């Protein structure tokens, strides 16, 4: 029984307690850059979750055979292989999205979030735990991307467009374009972090 709650814990911690973006502050670059549209967030979130899930599994599988001195290059090669899979399949099936995400797909390789999980978790834990951890961290990352995407797209353009269908509109308003542009990302993220801080301070008291 205890074993099972522990496993659930591995999955859950990535979403709030150790959220990669809000708490660990890793993988920020891609999150801020692509969260101007909900759609971009979904695709990058799925891509990163895929990479972190499989690279965690592979690294946990071979962890006993990896010599300590060259572990970083080995991690990077494993990660880079999965990123190449994502890179080529996204280019083939979703060329429009690939074009918009641009350099961010190859940059998943150097997303510190994935390397940090490989080094900090998968290298020391069993396959099952690493898989769950990867899934949880990936979900936490995607969740923040979605929240940021919804806030920014809704405020910045007045509507949310998903797969070429308009889902929500704010009506005939003149939206502040700044939110879909660069400063909006910093602003939204800073405020989200402050809100989370405030919530935690309240909880402590």
């Amino acid at each position: 029984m205890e074993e099972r709650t522990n496993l659930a814990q591995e999955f859950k911690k990535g979403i709030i307690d150790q959220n990669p973006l809000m708490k660990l502050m890793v993988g920020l670059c891609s999150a801020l850059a692509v969260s101007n549209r909900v759609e971009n967030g979904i695709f990058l979130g799925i891509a990163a979750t895929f990479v972190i899930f499989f690279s965690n599994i592979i690294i946990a599988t071979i962890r006993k055979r990896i010599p300590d001195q060259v572990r970083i290059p080995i991690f990077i090669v494993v990660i880079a292989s999965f990123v190449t899979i994502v890179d080529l399949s996204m280019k083939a099936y979703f060329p429009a999205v690939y074009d918009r995400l641009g350099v961010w797909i190859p940059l998943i390789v150097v997303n510190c979030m994935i390397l940090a999980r490989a080094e900090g978790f998968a290298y020391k834990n069993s396959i099952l735990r690493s898989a769950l951890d990867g899934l949880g961290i990936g979900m936490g990352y995607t969740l923040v991307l979605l929240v940021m995407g919804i806030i920014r797209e809704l405020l910045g353009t007045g509507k949310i467009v998903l797969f070429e269908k308009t889902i929500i509109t704010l009506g005939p308003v003149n939206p502040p374009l700044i939110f879909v542009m660069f400063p909006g990302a910093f602003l939204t993220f800073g405020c989200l972090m402050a809100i989370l801080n405030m919530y935690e301070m309240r909880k402590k008291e």
Partner: protein
Amino acid sequence: MNEAYRFFLLFLGALLVYNIILIRFIALCPFMGVSTQVETSIGMAMSVLFVMTMATSVSWISWNYILKPLGVGEFLYIPVFILIIASLVQFVEMVIKKISPPLYRAMGIYLPLITTNCAVLAAATEAVKPGFLKLNIAYHFSLPEAIIYTIGVALGFGLVIVMFACIRERLETSPVPHSFRGAPIGFIVAALLSLAFMGFANLLGL
């Protein structure tokens, strides 16, 4: 357009108009992590300039003379570029340690961090592989152009990181609401800086 003017545009575009941190959000982790003191951020900026220029040159050569002629570039470029960067960083670290210990003491601690600095991979990919760069005059770069572009990117990184460190040193002593302390106010400041850099948009038709 003559050659010198093109070089100037490329440099300016990479430095200000498409500033790597504030306009394109690449390399935010070192931006937030290292920029607490002016001195450390200057060290970081110097090491990035050094590694980035070398990484782009080697990547350019390997792409144009090895990967492309063999026809394997499309699916091997990510592992190859990142391995070039990782081994280059190791190599540079060893060389500096041997040749100039004072420089090593100043730069040494940042070097391992640079491997995962996405700016290096981003600059190498954009300068070498066509189709990633959104700059108006971008096309297939020659080696000198790739290097000029990379130096622009690296100096843009240095400029912003040093500027931000100066602001952050001031922030330490200013009265900030409790929940905004630390990283959140950093992001708000970055938003204002980014707003200022948006003023460079369309400069000289870039």
